[in-house]
């Protein structure tokens, strides 16, 4: 446990100093700061535009940070040979990988946390909303964090056997596809002209790929008043789903990394 937390802490320390991540985050923060100024242009949809634009920026910036942070993590350790000094100590590979993952998650949490804090502050300053609204924003930000933790696990898994550039595109692709799965499935399940075989195939793929669409629950925040049933249970379920999937990816990653020549 000591080794895992030491590796995690070091990873965190390094990640929050990486210039490229800071630049991505700063761009996100810049966008978040100017959104309220643009939203006032449209009196009627001010709230809609503001919330949806802020969440858009938060989600895409977080995803970019998660991927850029993770794809270079293992390759950098190998290239700079730090991994040798660590693995020659009594540290198992699974401990190393887990420590790296946790460190990435902490770094990501910190960055998403900062952006969310700014987002909620801006929202408060420009809209003077009720406390419950602020809570809803914070909750959606938290769900994005779970989503990005899953995305980090995806990138981590691929980083055990593909190059950073390939991993970058695979992870982004999987994320985009993952954000489409639910709506796509919805459209297809309602399409009566599609062959049942194709539907089954899609259904299978649908249940195999990581599903990121689950975590986007901003619509009721943008369009308030919708009665959502068993809301809390839903959030618990998608968090549980995230943990399950992260577990799968990390175990597979460890199995591959364990046999990998570094």
């Amino acid at each position: 446990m000591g080794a895992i937390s030491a590796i995690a802490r070091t990873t965190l320390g390094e990640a929050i100093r990486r210039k490229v991540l800071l630049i991505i985050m700063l761009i996100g923060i810049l966008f978040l700061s100017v959104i309220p100024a643009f939203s006032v242009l449209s009196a009627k949809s001010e709230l809609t535009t503001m919330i949806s634009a802020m969440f858009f920026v938060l989600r895409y910036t977080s995803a970019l940070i998660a991927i850029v942070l993770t794809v270079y993590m293992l390759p950098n350790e190998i290239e700079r040979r730090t991994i040798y000094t660590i693995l020659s100590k009594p540290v198992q590979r699974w401990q190393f990988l887990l420590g790296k993952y946790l460190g990435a998650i902490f770094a990501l949490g910190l960055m998403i946390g900062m952006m969310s804090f700014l987002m909620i502050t801006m929202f408060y300053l420009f809209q003077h909303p009720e406390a419950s609204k602020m809570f809803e924003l914070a909750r959606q930000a938290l769900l994005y964090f779970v989503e990005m933790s899953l995305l980090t696990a995806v990138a981590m898994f691929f980083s055990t056997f593909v190059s950073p550039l390939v991993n970058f595109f695979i992870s982004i692709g999987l994320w985009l596809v993952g954000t489409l799965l639910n709506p796509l499935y919805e459209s297809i399940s309602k399409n009566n002209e599609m062959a049942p075989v194709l539907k089954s195939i899609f259904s299978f793929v649908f249940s195999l790929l990581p599903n990121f669409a689950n975590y986007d629950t901003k619509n009721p925040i943008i369009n308030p008043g919708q009665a959502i049933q068993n809301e809390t249970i839903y959030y618990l379920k998608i968090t549980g789903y995230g943990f399950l999937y992260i577990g799968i990816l990390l175990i597979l990653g460890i199995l591959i990394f364990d046999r990998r020549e570094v």
Partner: protein
Amino acid sequence: MAAAIETRNLTKTYKSKLRGNVNVVDNLNLEVEEGEIFGFLGPNGAGKTTTIKMLLGIIYPTGGEGYVLGKEIGDMDVHKIISYLPERPYYYEHMTGLEILRFYGSLFGIKDESKFHALLDKVNLAADKSKTINQFSKGMQQRIGLAQSLLNDPKLLFLDEPTGGLDPIAHIEIRDLILQFRDEGRTVFISSHELSEVERICDRVAIINFGKIERQGKLDDLLRGGRNEIVADGLTREFADQVQADLKDSIVSFNAGRLIVDAPEDNNVNTIIDSVRSAKGSLVSVTPRRRRLEDLFIETVNKPKEESK
């Protein structure tokens, strides 16, 4: 004395698209005694680092077996009593020397601050403990590397090119530290191609080329039976060429009538002296010499691959 390292037919084969199977390490049989400084020599690409990585359990052998401090390679328990300093290591740049030691210490579960300070003292970095790594010179980086490799009080140290790229003063500092390790009873396994350094500090060496051990043994034994240097004046270039043609194992040089022959011990010195005299040359000196490690090394690695097999 027990063997600190022992390998039997240790082999690492990589599959290459162009060249088929490549034996990077080929049936390696290595024996390192406890308490000695062992030099593991070889040109670049000979398989030194691959061997070390296999011994450390970072990569897996494709054949043979190996034991480190009596345990099979890859055994996690061994990692508690060995350490490794890679070639030109990189440490997390945002950390200070002290933080580096804390980090690596925590991998062993060591939290004793006084130990960290003592180690900084030992590698002469106590005054720079709050500098971050990116403010360190190469020598300082190597010294902090040595400090981290001493954290667990290791019985066996693997040092990969420990003096590579360092200035002469840093060389001396590192050399002294390594000698100190031996005095403390540790086994030190040095991989290097800085032959003069190795010659100065190692008890035994092995020379590896194309993945195979070519020479292995005590330094004194390997270098015993040196060479003779014969210097004569008043000779012609034709004569020098003739000597070189006759003595293939010797190194012959000629400049302004002076001939210098660097001949192996088994060449008959008298025969050379006789021919100098018969050519009306005057003998200047005949000096018997112990072989240098460099000579042994060059002699070993200059053999083409086919011959080496």
